């Protein structure tokens, strides 16, 4: 009997000591590489106190290797984390399978383009965490040595090509650009003509505008402005820039972290994608990644809270100022950090501006997925290698699209 009040007191003290929510553990996951620094930095430097106040313990499990496969396996086996990355490239396969919980928080601060990329059937399924667009990155020293003017925001395809040819003529051991036969880079040129990957009927039509961009891109090698990246022993355009084999690279802001390791002293400049000389417009592709809550999560409310915290203005500002990724919130577009003169500040500014280019589409191809790019990649490849002429290559690409999209 005597013990009763003591027990009650102990329980009362314990209850007072508890935070607002019961202590919940949220498992979150994304891919490895530089992302690990971002998430770990956010969790320890920016969000630690807030998470403690909410009574949420975050267990971060980064995954190296093919993340989309990891998450699809995990979701189908019921072992997936509560909160995970979705790339706009494959997000649809998760959303359409009902594996992501719809976002309920207020998302008015985020860029509309990015929100649209994660909207399926009228519902938003992921909070965009960052994004990237393509830009022209160049090695100033190479242009100085060659006595050629730097690429500029006013460049058209032709003026940029002339500069690259001039560099190669002055410095024969340096090529202008290492090109890859991939839609992921070529697409920006095709889009700038006003061509669209899918027309109103959902068909892909390789029209005159596409042909113009195709001829320009495949002609870069012949004109002496570019070399195939594979022939220079590289798999991406940035590899050649880093090894000083090429004067420019067409990549997103991810090139900064690659150059930080492989060419830390490069005198880097970044300008926007060149304009189509006929339309005078610019095209670009948006690559974006968001946080999605597992629809089957037992702690979905806490997971949504973590997603919200990871994408607050404060969190994104920290990520931006570390030069790690570009903010998906429009409020940060005129952050003072972006006006700085450091290469990563300049690059980030230019890549951010790419989002407001004239013709911008996300790196996403409907239900067909990545295989949509195969016909275009094969055509680019065979024409650049001289195995087929543009007429034959594009005719076979067109018939491949007709078969693919007829299904």
């Amino acid at each position, binding site marked *: 009997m005597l013990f009763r009040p003591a027990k009650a007191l102990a329980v009362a003290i314990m209850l007072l000591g508890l935070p607002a929510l019961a202590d919940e553990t949220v498992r979150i996951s994304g891919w490895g590489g530089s992302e690990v620094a971002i998430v770990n930095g956010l969790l320890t430097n920016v969000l630690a106190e807030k998470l403690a106040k909410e009574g949420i313990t975050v267990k971060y499990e980064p995954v190296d290797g*093919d993340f*989309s*496969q990891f998450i*699809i396996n995990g*979701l*189908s086996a019921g072992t997936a984390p509560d909160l995970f990355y979705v790339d706009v*490239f*494959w997000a*649809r*396969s998760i959303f*359409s*399978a*009902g*594996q992501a919980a719809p976002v309920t928080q207020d998302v008015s601060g985020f860029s509309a383009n990015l929100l649209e990329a994660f909207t399926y059937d009228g519902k938003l399924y992921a909070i965009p965490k960052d994004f990237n667009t393509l830009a022209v990155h160049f090695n100033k020293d190479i242009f100085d040595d060659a006595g050629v003017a730097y690429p500029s925001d006013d460049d058209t395809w032709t003026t940029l090509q002339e500069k690259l040819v001039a560099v190669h003529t002055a410095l024969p051991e340096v090529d202008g650009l290492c090109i890859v036969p*991939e839609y992921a880079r070529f697409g920006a040129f095709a889009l700038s003509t006003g061509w669209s990957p899918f027309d109103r009927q959902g068909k892909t039509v390789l029209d005159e505008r596409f042909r113009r961009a195709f001829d320009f891109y495949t002609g870069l090698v012949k004109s002496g402005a570019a070399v*195939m990246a*594979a*022939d220079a*022993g590289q*798999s991406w355009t940035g590899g050649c820039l880093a090894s000083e084999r090429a004067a420019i690279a067409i990549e997103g802001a991810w090139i900064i972290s690659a150059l930080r390791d492989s060419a830390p002293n490069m005198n880097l400049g970044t300008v926007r994608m060149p304009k189509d000389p006929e339309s005078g417009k610019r095209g670009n592709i948006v690559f974006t990644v968001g946080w999605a809550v597992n629809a089957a999560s037992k702690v979905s409310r806490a997971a949504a809270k973590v997603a919200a915290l990871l994408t607050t203005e404060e969190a994104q500002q920290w990520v931006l100022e570390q030069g790690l990724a570009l903010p998906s919130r429009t409020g940060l577009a005129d952050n003072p950090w972006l006006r700085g003169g450091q290469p990563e500040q300049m690059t980030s500014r230019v890549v951010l501006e790419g989002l407001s280019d004239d013709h911008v589409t996300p790196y*996403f*191809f409907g*239900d*067909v*997925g*990545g*295989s949509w790019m*195969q016909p275009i*990649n*094969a055509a680019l*490849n*065979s024409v650049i*290698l001289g*195995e*087929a002429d543009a007429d034959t290559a594009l005719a076979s690409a067109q018939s491949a699209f007709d*078969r693919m999209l007829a299904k």
Partner: protein
Amino acid sequence: MSRVSSDERSGWLFVLPFTISMTLFFVYAIVRTAYYSFTEYDLFTAPSFVGLSNYTTLVSDELFLIALRNTIGFSLIVTTVQTVLALALAVLVNHAVRVRGLVRTVFYLPSIMSSAAMTLIFLWLFQRDGFMTAIVSTVLAYRRHMLLFFVGMAALQGALVLNARRSYEGVSIFDPFFLLAAAFGALALIVACALAGLLPVFDNDLLISWLNTQRHFLFMPVTLWSVALMNIFTTVPTLMLLFLAGLQSIPSALYDAAEIDGANAFQRFRHITVPALRPVTFAVVTMGVIGTLQMFDQVAILGDAAPLASRVTLAYYVYESAFPAGASSRIGMASAAALVLGILTIAVVYAQKSVGVKERAE
């Protein structure tokens, strides 16, 4: 009676672990795959029965037909070439008297490397202006030199042997001393001709697309020919070891008897070695057929270094259907293709067994 049942029980106990793993990972998996092949399934929503539609889609899917053709061509080429080469190498190593251990080790080296590391090395060797291209380019540039060398050497050797035979009987055409002399003579001839400016070197700026190409050679994409080359290089040593073990179990008395009867080296090889090695050859061919029909890793690692249609095999097609980039899984299609691959493998092995190399030695 009780003795028998106790024997039986321990017998069952011995095979129990294997039976369990076989039931779990083979029988169960195959039944499930067969079931999924008649359904449409994306790993999330419940599978819906669609009858034979996956199979009819397969036959009309261009990529599947390409994969089927590629797989059969690849298997045919690689199995044939690697079996012949492995046998030849084994005979060679078996004959090496002095440094047999070293030779065997050196020949075996390619097999101990992981297939992933090997593929990366070959990616580099197969660059358009890489090592392989350099070899072809050198051969082309000095083709006249080489031709002259062989013609000159044959002529000199013939002259030397004919001359010797006038005085001595039984001089072999391949007399080693004369061969050496003929080689030196031919080399001197080339140097003289080159110095006199009679032998032009062909400058060629060759760029050969070994992997990244949509061209075909005979019935197979050039890319797969390159992969075949790499595959042969890595598997021949293991098969050579099998042949070598077989060779060492052939009693030498057979060879001695044949030699006394006047059989030459080729006849001994043809009538003793080949028939005696038949069980080993059966194992080598069967392993080769199974391994090549299911080839996956080397084309998967190639990735974007080669166009999909030039490198797709049935096993890769299964994977592509199960995990398509940026699209929902097509487990039904993947299962149907996997079953086709399985049935094809069994059929080819049985066909091989009944019309090809027999399991037993003669």
